[in-house]
């Protein structure tokens, strides 16, 4: 297989320029939704929830929502966003006629998806801080964690994008993979509340280690098990990152 070159940054820059031109068209909705969820669940449902250690429910879900919405950002960017550029706008065809190769395009898309996740992480962190839900200076590391998490999800998403026949295929991706993960990765309730089997499965789905990370950083309770979380994230990222380069070439360079 071939690998990307430093030129992938050109694709990242292209996506950044588009974002800077059009961000006002999508970003408000992207920020409004998590705020609504945080308030509705945290204050509404939270009134009925008593956590073991006396923590407020809104404090429990805030870091989970940060990781959850970072996940959505990277995934939307590298499914619908990448697919429109790939099939509808034929942007990638234009790019690979220049000194850039398809691997550079794939890597640029993935790094941009990760950047979107990091930006979401920053926005969510500010919101959480405004509500007084951040208790540790380690929380400043959250954008970096969201970037790593974003690399993982962008790689998985772009891999899927490079093999689907139609834009409607993403309904499966979100309904059967992303949305369930949002509920089974410890965002809204601790994994320990699930039956044993579900707990074990939850531990190896990609969102769980990211939630584990954001929760530790917001509370300041760093734990050696974070190393395992990091390993899980890398174990998803590397094969999907490399795989998406192979499948993108197979799709476009024929």
């Amino acid at each position, binding site marked *: 297989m071939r690998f990307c070159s430093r030129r992938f940054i050109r694709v990242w820059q*292209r996506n950044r320029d588009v974002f800077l031109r059009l961000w006002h068209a999508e970003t408000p909705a992207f920020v409004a939704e998590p705020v609504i969820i945080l308030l509705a669940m945290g204050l509404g449902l939270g009134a009925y929830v008593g956590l073991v250690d006396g923590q407020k429910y809104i404090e429990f879900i805030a870091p989970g929502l940060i990781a959850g919405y970072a996940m959505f950002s990277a995934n939307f960017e590298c499914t619908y966003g990448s697919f429109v550029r790939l099939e509808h706008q*034929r942007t990638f065809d234009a790019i690979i006629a*220049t*000194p850039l*190769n398809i691997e550079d395009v794939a890597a640029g898309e993935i790094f941009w998806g990760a950047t979107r996740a990091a930006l979401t992480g920053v926005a969510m962190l500010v919101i959480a801080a405004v509500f007084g839900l951040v208790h540790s200076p380690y929380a400043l590391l959250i954008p970096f964690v969201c970037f790593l998490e974003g690399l993982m999800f962008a790689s998985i998403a772009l891999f899927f994008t490079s093999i689907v026949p139609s834009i409607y295929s993403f309904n499966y991706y979100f309904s059967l993979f992303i949305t369930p993960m949002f509920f089974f990765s410890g965002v809204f309730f601790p994994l320990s509340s699930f039956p044993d089997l579900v707990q074990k499965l939850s531990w190896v789905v990609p969102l769980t280690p990211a939630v584990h990370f954001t929760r530790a950083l917001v509370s300041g309770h760093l734990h050696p098990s974070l190393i395992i979380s990091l390993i899980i994230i890398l174990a998803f990222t590397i094969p999907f990152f490399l795989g998406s380069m192979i499948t993108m070439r197979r799709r476009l*360079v024929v």
Partner: protein
Amino acid sequence: MIAIETRGLTKTFGDIIAVNDVNLQIYDNECFGLLGPNGAGKTSLVRMITAVSPPTSGDIYILGKDLKSHSREIKALFGVIPQIDNLDPDLTVIQNLLTFARYFDIPKKEALKRSSEVLSLLQLDDRSNSPIRELSGGMRRRLLIARGLINSPRILILDEPTIGLDPQAKRLVWDKLNELKAQGVTQLLCTQNMEEADFLCDRVAIMHQGKIIENDTPQNLVSKYIGDNVWEVKLDPQDKNRVIQIFKEKRLDFEIAGNSVHFFREEGTKLIGSLMAPHKLRSRPPTLEDVFFKLTGRSLTE
């Protein structure tokens, strides 16, 4: 010097042979036309030459360098103007050009200079800050051409560059392509427009069913296959079969083109006066299109 050379170039898709053992030599500083009906394999051939499609077998050399091992370096010399509009609709006109320049690692300052040059070359100066969706079809096509020139390419590869343009814009593009040739830019032009090929190309190749079946200057092809004149006879649809039957009986050299018949020698036309009104006969100079039909047939190929 040879700008583009292919040796035994072949591309198959499953059982279909899209490009079949093509050997081409396109000289530096010439405009070379690639003609052929839809499905002849032109696009597959050009995709291989522009390094976005790997050959099934055979080799491609660009200015003496093997495309396989020097693809990035070679792509930097190309200006590719695609048939489909793949302008970036999320960016403005100038951003399209600057973004493209960045793919070629052209520094910002130089990119701004080149952008304004190519915009004025294609008379789009006043559209610099327009969003793409506000451009007419003709402007978009001119912008595609401008974008292909942003890196001052050594070799231009054009796929139907004037499709959808009005006669004024078409002339503008033809003039600019001629000027670029005078400046030393080699051009590979795929077109269905025979007038365009005749006007622009030093040599043309006719491609049919994956093979190059002829390759010469437009003048040579016309005199080789057609001669000096074409006599065109319009037939009444009702009367068509009867008249054609007579032509056949007399063993005349003619070709049926829909409701018309073409004669390539004057003898054939002597009979016409006795069969129908003389105003239905007209003589005209032969064109590349006559050659095209003669070599690739009149039926639809796909």
